């Protein structure tokens, strides 16, 4: 449950982030922004950041939904630090399920792949049940 302060800060920043391996609870269909940072050096290249939500079974990651972002990196002999993000539409996730995440630079997977398990909880759309009139009285 977010506090008033957290909600105010979140309004200012646009979104409140959960640092891994914290758990983020979302409603199916809400967009998730996954933010990464990394250091880079080398020639100028264009790469793709791929952030995924899925399920890992027996070590194999089954991707359910993902978001990508094209990134242009400059030619540099010195290490530079970059922070980037990708937005993920979770419409394809199943409600009432826990999910794992992965993030990587697609062209350099072996050097960049990171993964966290059981960090996204997806709940279903608002549901009501047992709706009835329990009584009526003067007020």
């Amino acid at each position, binding site marked *: 449950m977010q506090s008033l302060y957290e909600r105010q800060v979140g309004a200012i920043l*646009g*979104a*409140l*982030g*959960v*640092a*891994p391996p914290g758990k*983020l609870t*979302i409603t199916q269909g*809400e*967009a*998730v*922004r*996954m*933010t*990464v*940072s*990394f*250091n*880079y*050096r*080398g*020639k100028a*290249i264009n790469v793709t950041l791929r*952030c995924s939500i899925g399920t890992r079974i027996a070590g194999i990651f089954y991707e359910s939904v993902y978001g990508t972002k094209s990134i242009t*990196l400059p*030619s*540099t*002999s010195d*290490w530079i*630090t970059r*922070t980037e993000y990708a*937005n993920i539409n979770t419409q394809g996730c199943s409600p009432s399920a826990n999910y794992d*995440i992965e*993030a*990587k*630079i697609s062209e*350099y997977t072996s*050097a*960049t*792949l*990171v993964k*966290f398990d059981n*960090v*996204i909880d997806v709940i279903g759309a608002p549901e009501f049940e047992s709706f009835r009139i329990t009584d009526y009285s003067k007020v």
Partner: protein
Amino acid sequence: MDLYASLPISQLAAVGKGAFTEIVDIVAPSSAPAGSRVDITVKIKNLYSSTIGIMVGGALEYGVSPWPTITFPSPSANVGPGATYSFNGYFTMPSVAVTIHAYSYYYAEGWHFDDEAVKAVSLAEVFAGTISGMELEYDEARANIPAYDIPQGQRGLVHIWGRNDMTTTQRLGIHWAVYDPDLLLVEDYEDWSLFGAAPDVEHEFIGGRFDINKIGNWQIVVNLLMNPASPVVVDIYDGTLCTVAAVVPEPEFAGFGVNDYSKI
């Protein structure tokens, strides 16, 4: 003074090098390029016992008739007894060797021829050549000089081509100096072609390898030479050899991690 009349006829006839004057020297270059102005000096001595008027004259012998004359802006002078006077003159060098004929005259109720001397001037070659190509070889690649963005750490090798622009076969020579961005001498190379290059033919000179180990602007000074006996610079390049850029490593990532994830 009527000098001519004052001398006995026998004395005039006996004169070999001139009765009253003697051409003691013709100062002129031993050779001159075709079309160039050739300056000469004719030194004439007064052999007489008092001052006389002396005049100089000259002509060029090289197969044309009449012989072209040599220009003397001030062809006459009064010269004291025993003195030597220098007459300056000039002519344009034809395309063949010439023989200078210089004459002296003395004045006695008119100018009278008195002495003659000769001097040969050969035709000097005008050396002409061009630096027709310049390349920098590095890591088995080549680029025209000036070359740009050469990766630091390569081994450099300079190739220079010289072309003989003359109508005769000539040996070509080269001298170049390579300086690094700190203006330190890196290579000093000099060589001559073993054989002559025919007209319009190029000769390639290849230097020694050197380390391109500094970032920045490298310089080279190239002199193309001819005439090994007395080298003449016929073309020059003085400028950038190459610019050297820092080596950019292969793409490398480190510290890749997820900072956070959030609803938006």
